[in-house]
């Protein structure tokens, strides 16, 4: 099937070339980081995880959100999603790939990565994260590819695929749960030390992921003959609406606990993010933008006319995606480190090389996504034709 990716329009090749250029730039700066050390990033002794780990966290959510297509289709036999389930699975593949790359670019000694396998340490959450991420990648490649191949040949997918599909459903939940456990089990980091972190991660994932899928469906429809279908898109829109509301609700629960208990370890981080602390407030405008975007999106999503109109729906999806990206990709990680355990403030701003490396990793993800989607749309067009 891969040959479908080798034939394409001029636009297709220009897009791939543009991504390749971004990858090359990112790779060049990664080599510099490798040579010099993580000193070229904005991270510090106090803020030891920054942009890379934040993108990782956000993308684990995007990857997990494939389950929002898989579950209705395979468990509830919701046929409308039949056409686009593979779109979700391949989005998961490229997202997990980016997650892994973000972990690798964040390591101080990437050459020793295999030490995690040589000295397996089950009491470290990072060990489990490695297992669930690799497993999820493997499951989605296998399932997506086989189901698509069967569809192309007009036969039912192989029997052994079914149990794997069922396994992939709780597995999707597990990747984001374990990712939340990386943070929420650490003593002395009041911002993350909350049992609701994993549910909140999942809610924001099931909002941002399907929102992105809707946007992808619009883009695919524009450039190919493959249409996901209005009904599928509208169902996804409802999922986005519920998940965005759940995410906001969980967030407000957090705010209540911190604000009413007034325990400094819990209030300090929120205060820093939303109002600034002791004169430091680099993230304040970002966080309020995030809130404004999410609230605006909710309004658009719960008014039926606005949700059914594809223009306003498109805006709502962009708002959800960007709003949650700010929350998880900017605030969630550095916010947990500011103030530090000694209640001192060191702010964090990513540097230019750090941002270019990040863009490079995203470009790798989009390249893989484009190639996989080219195959999918190629097969679907062939079947339709």
């Amino acid at each position: 099937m891969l040959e479908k990716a080798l034939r394409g329009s001029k636009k297709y090749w220009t897009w791939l070339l543009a991504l390749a250029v971004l990858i090359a730039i990112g790779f060049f700066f990664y080599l510099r980081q490798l040579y010099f050390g993580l000193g070229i990033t904005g991270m510090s002794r106090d803020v030891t995880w920054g942009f890379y780990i934040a993108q990782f966290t956000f993308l684990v959510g995007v990857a997990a959100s494939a389950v929002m297509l898989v579950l209705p289709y395979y468990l509830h036999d919701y046929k409308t999603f039949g056409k686009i389930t593979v779109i979700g699975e391949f989005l998961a593949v490229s997202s997990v790939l980016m997650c892994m790359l973000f972990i690798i670019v964040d390591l101080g000694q990437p050459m020793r990565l295999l030490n995690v396998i040589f000295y397996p340490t089950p009491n470290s959450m990072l060990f489990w994260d490695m297992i669930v991420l690799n497993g999820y990648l493997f499951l989605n490649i296998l399932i997506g590819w086989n189901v698509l191949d069967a569809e192309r040949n007009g036969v039912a997918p192989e029997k052994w695929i079914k149990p794997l599909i069922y396994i992939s459903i709780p597995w999707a939940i597990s990747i984001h749960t374990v990712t939340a456990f990386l943070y929420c089990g650490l003593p002395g980091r009041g911002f993350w030390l909350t049992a609701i972190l994993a549910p909140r991660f999942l809610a924001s994932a099931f909002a941002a992921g399907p929102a992105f899928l809707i946007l992808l469906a619009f883009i695919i429809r524009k450039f190919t003959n493959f249409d996901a279908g209005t009904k599928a898109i509208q169902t996804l829109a409802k999922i986005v609406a519920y998940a965005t509301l759940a995410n906001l609700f969980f967030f407000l629960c957090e705010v209540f606990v911190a604000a009413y208990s007034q325990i400094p370890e819990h209030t300090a981080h929120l205060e820093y993010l939303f109002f600034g602390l002791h004169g430091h407030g680099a993230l304040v405008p970002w966080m309020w933008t995030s809130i404004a975007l999410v609230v605006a999106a909710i309004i658009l999503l719960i008014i039926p006319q606005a949700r059914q109109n594809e223009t306003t729906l498109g805006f709502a999806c962009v708002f959800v995606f960007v709003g949650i990206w700010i929350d998880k990709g900017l605030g969630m990680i550095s916010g947990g480190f500011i103030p530090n355990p000694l209640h001192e403030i060191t702010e964090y701003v990513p540097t230019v090389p750090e941002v270019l490396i990040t863009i490079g990793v995203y470009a790798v993800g989009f390249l893989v996504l484009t190639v996989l989607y080219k195959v999918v749309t190629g097969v679907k067009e062939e079947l339709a034709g």
Partner: protein
Amino acid sequence: MENSRRRFLKNAGFSILGVGAGSMLIGLSAHTSKAVSPDAGQRPQFSMGDKAMEAERWGMVVDTRKLNDSICRKMQEACHSIHNVPEPVGESAQRDQIIKWIWPTEFQHAFPSQEVEFLAEDAAHRPVVVLCNHCDNPPCVRACPTRATFKRERDGIVMMDFHRCIGCRFCMAACPFGARSFNFRDPRPDIEDENPDFPTRMRGVVEKCNFCAERLAVGKKPACVEASDGALTFGDLNDPDSDVRKLLAEKYAIRRKPNLGTFPSVFYIV
């Protein structure tokens, strides 16, 4: 009682997970001199001379009443110079990418949740020296995915294996005391007088105070204790006749963030 109950819980937790972590740590008996690549199956060890000081659980008592700026500077200099801690100037120092094993801070920063509102002026601004607490229940060890950070069962010291560390900095997020530093760049050019008896580090690994394990192995007390003019006392917390236990029996001492259950082995008389 409390201790054994906790140990039981910990062991139970570990066996449920099927972790042989304890046995792995106990099995570190290879006698080698200085740090050898652990990939060869060995851990950093310092050869135990005849004069080696031994204890069941090393601990420290800091008498903050005896501290002042110049003593703190002396202690930090003593520690950093023998352990090849770089002293960079310029950009990396500004951006707080520095390395420190022991440093003075104020009471409100050393004990952020144990604030004393109307502390006497001199007590509020008197320096309090902080370092790794060598916690009896260390969260940094729990978090490390490679066991590059490990607790030496023999004497409770929380140690680092610079050759195994992958630089993920999970331990830094897990430590609630900010005791750890990361080598954001090659530290070697910033070491003024290299001590050939202690390994230098490479970029991309984490480091911290090691309770002077290499000095204990040859019967010497930690460098900061020697430089402290009597402000720091070092000894075996499990020996009722040790200097530290005698001090603790006499004076009221506190620990940093006791509510987090890490059981620090560094105590403070205030």
